[in-house]
């Protein structure tokens, strides 16, 4: 790395004075996604900025700082990247700021302790691409997230943003746009996987106006934060996609419905809409055409069911967010009874790429029936937690073990939960399953919005089923009986099993209730609510039976059914468990076998997790 020459610096200063950001100058990217935010990344950005200003007096390097959206590998945050050199630093703290400015920025020296260590070779790697977490990823929906400053429309435009809109409005008729989206094979990323092109075509075929386009940003699945990252990291891609969609179906008004908990996303989108309006991408006669369109934000009220399309529309209308039966589809009668296209955040973010590169190009990626990529939030008991975007059809094993780096603490993989509360748990036997809409559905789970929660042998599958059912019991809107009553009864039965009152006939009863709900519930939420129960019974029946017949929780999670013991042959008396025990139930002298006082033990499992020798056993 060498210091840029004088001409470069002048050019950069010229850009600076214009208030725009360019790619050709050295830039420090500081991740400000949710994970890094909580690890103080804005303070690091601020310190870097002032250090660089300070150093700037006698140093010829003056990088720009961008506060970007999530760069993905939250586990190793806060992350910073220096481009175009492409150096990635992880777990950066305020104490490192000086060294980064003085060593890396001033004299081009790399700081080894901030680099990623490859799990395969054990050697440090310099760039993001070389990090095995990123190597297999293909970024379409996340193409700008972590690369651009979400608060600067110019940065988006510099990266080709609004080019697709310009092409659309100036060169393409609505029919051609729809045909292109249809040809791409894009399916809705919100969960159900309905072909986007077909949805648009149907909506466009209705003559009545006004028509609406809606973006579903009510990301409520526990363990999922893809949409949040896109809204916070690249808001204009969603806005551009929506404008193109509106042009295609003939809508002049659109809504972005954002979850109440996502305050930062609301703020980022609000700013982006204002900027897009100022530049003439939103409003009357967009880019000099006869097409007019504008967008507003609706902030959700904290109800999971509002992620269901008809409930979401009721909520936008200012009503209670209850779903309706879909005898008539929303494309015909949606918002205020008018034709409406509703797509999810990630779907909209894919649109500009499809229009720029063409549908045929897009469908080269992924599988025949599930084209393109999918963003997943890889969380739970996996080493590299974070956000990943991979081609459809990737094997679960690659996702969890290559990208995710395997299971935390060297424990054993047990299951991966996909599809949120309506999805299911997939066991080890199915790790070679390709991740696409149809394969996951066949396995009894679903793609859902893309949460992927990895579970190890310390996760009890009955407890997981209970957790989801309890979640849904809280969130069921109560409008239809199968869902309202069915979920509650399931929750009671699962509670009984977890607390040692289960009977063998309970399993059939659970499956029976589940079938009824899948048949008779009003909306997708109720129909898919039994999935976590039916998949865990299907794949982990033995674990249910251990709870019921032996009154034992093999994972050591259900407190009433758990007893922990220290294996004397394995215990070396290190004392870690004794230190971590919140009730002082563990006794033993150093280097002597430790014992657990069952009277005092509250079965929190801290000792299991702290033991390096795996000496704490579940009886």
């Amino acid at each position, binding site marked *: 790395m060498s210091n840029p020459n004088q001409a470069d610096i002048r050019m950069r200063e010229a850009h600076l004075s214009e208030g725009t950001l360019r790619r050709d100058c050295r830039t420090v990217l500081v991740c400000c996604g*949710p*994970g890094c*935010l*909580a*690890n*103080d*990344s*804005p*303070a690091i950005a601020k310190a870097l900025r002032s250090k660089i200003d300070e150093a700037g007096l006698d140093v010829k390097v003056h990088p720009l700082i961008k506060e970007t959206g999530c760069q993905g590998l*939250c*586990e190793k*945050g806060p992350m910073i990247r220096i481009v175009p050199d492409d150096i990635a630093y992880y777990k950066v703290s305020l104490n490192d700021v000086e060294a980064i400015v003085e060593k890396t920025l001033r004299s081009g020296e790399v700081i080894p302790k901030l680099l990623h260590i490859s799990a395969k070779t054990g050697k440090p790697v310099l760039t993001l691409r070389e990090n095995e977490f990123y190597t297999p990823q293909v970024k379409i929906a996340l193409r700008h997230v972590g690369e651009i400053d979400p608060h600067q429309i110019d940065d988006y435009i510099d990266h080709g943003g609004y080019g697709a809109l310009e092409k659309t409005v100036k060169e393409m008729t609505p029919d051609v746009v729809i045909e292109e989206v249809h040809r791409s094979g894009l399916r809705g990323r919100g969960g159900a996987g309905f072909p986007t092109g077909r949805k648009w075509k149907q909506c466009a075929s209705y003559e009545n106006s006004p028509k609406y386009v809606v973006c579903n940003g009510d*990301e*409520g*699945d*526990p*363990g*999922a*934060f893809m949409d*949040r990252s896109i809204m916070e990291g690249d808001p204009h891609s969603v806005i551009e996609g929506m404008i193109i969609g509106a042009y295609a179906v003939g809508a002049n008004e659109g809504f972005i419905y954002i979850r*109440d*908990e*996502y*305050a*930062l996303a609301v*703020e980022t989108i609000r700013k982006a809409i204002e900027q897009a309006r100022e530049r003439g991408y939103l409003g009357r006669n967009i880019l000099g055409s006869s097409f007019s369109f504008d967008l507003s934000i*609706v*902030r*959700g*009220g*904290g*109800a*999971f069911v509002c992620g269901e399309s008809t409930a979401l529309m009721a*909520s*936008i*209308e*200012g*009503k*209670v*967010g209850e779903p309706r039966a879909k005898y008539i589809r929303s494309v015909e009668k949606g918002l205020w009874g008018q034709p409406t296209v509703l797509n999810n955040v990630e779907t909209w973010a894919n649109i500009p790429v499809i229009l720029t590169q063409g549908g045929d190009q897009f469908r080269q990626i992924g599988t025949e029936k599930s084209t393109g990529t999918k963003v997943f*939030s890889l*969380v*739970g*008991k996996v080493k590299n*937690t*974070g*956000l990943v975007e991979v081609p459809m059809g990737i094997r679960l094993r690659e996702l969890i073990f290559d990208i995710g780096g395997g299971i935390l603490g060297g424990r054993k993989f047990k299951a991966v*939960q996909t599809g949120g509360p309506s999805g299911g748990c997939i066991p080890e036997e199915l790790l070679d399953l390709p991740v696409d809409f149809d394969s996951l559905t066949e396995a009894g789970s679903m793609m859902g919005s893309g*949460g992927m*929660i990895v579970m190890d042998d310390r*996760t009890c599958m009955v407890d*997981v089923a209970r*957790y*989801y059912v309890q*979640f849904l019991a809280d*969130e069921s*809107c109560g409008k239809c009986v199968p869902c309202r009553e069915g979920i509650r009864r399931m929750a009671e039965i699962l509670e009984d099993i977890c607390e040692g009152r289960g009977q063998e006939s309970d399993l059939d009863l659970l499956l029976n209730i589940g079938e009824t709900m899948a048949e008779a519930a009003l909306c997708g939420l109720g129909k898919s609510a039994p999935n976590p129960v039916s998949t865990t019974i299907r794949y982990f029946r033995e674990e249910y039976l251990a709870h019921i017949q032996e009154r034992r929780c093999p994972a050591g999670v259900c407190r009433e059914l758990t007893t922990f013991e220290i294996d004397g042959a394995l215990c070396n008396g290190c004392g870690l468990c004794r230190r971590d025990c*919140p009730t002082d139930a563990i006794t033993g002298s150093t280097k002597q076998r430790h014992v657990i006082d069952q009277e005092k033990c509250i079965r*929190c*499992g801290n000792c299991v997790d702290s033991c390096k020798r795996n000496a704490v056993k579940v009886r």
Partner: protein
Amino acid sequence: MTLSSGMQHRSPDRVAVTGRILEGYPKEQRYTLAMLQDIQKEFQFIPRESMELIADYLELPLSKIYSLATFYKALSLRPKGKHVIKICDGTACHIRSSQMLANELYTLLKIRPGETTEDGQFSIEMVNCLGACAIAPVIVIDETFYGKVTPAKLQEIIAQYGDAFGQSDRSGGVAHE
């Protein structure tokens, strides 16, 4: 209670503040939720008089407004504490022991999720996934996120929100607004 008897107890302050909030919105039902959210933010709950004023303003039955106020979790009919502690109980946090944090908070503050301390300083809510799963378990106090929280760390965090709070010495996290 009829509408008119409710009106006898109206607090003039609340009426005035609610009136100002409503003026910012056109008289259309679609803004009901937004109005209620503004009111919630202002008072930390939805006072009865505010619901009555919205009903009058939009010419809707009071029952419609009441059903919204009770349906959405972001809205509350009872006042919440000055600081709202949200414990994330999303799946990732759940399997990384969010329940332990609830227990620890009970030890510290003597309240359970859904309750408010007697001095009105804190309330606790168990909430659904906050979308910060990679740093599970997560708690949010007001708008500040804290990741990878342990019971020991929790004590330190809560201590920051004692009497000294307000001098914005919040080194553990970053304000989200």
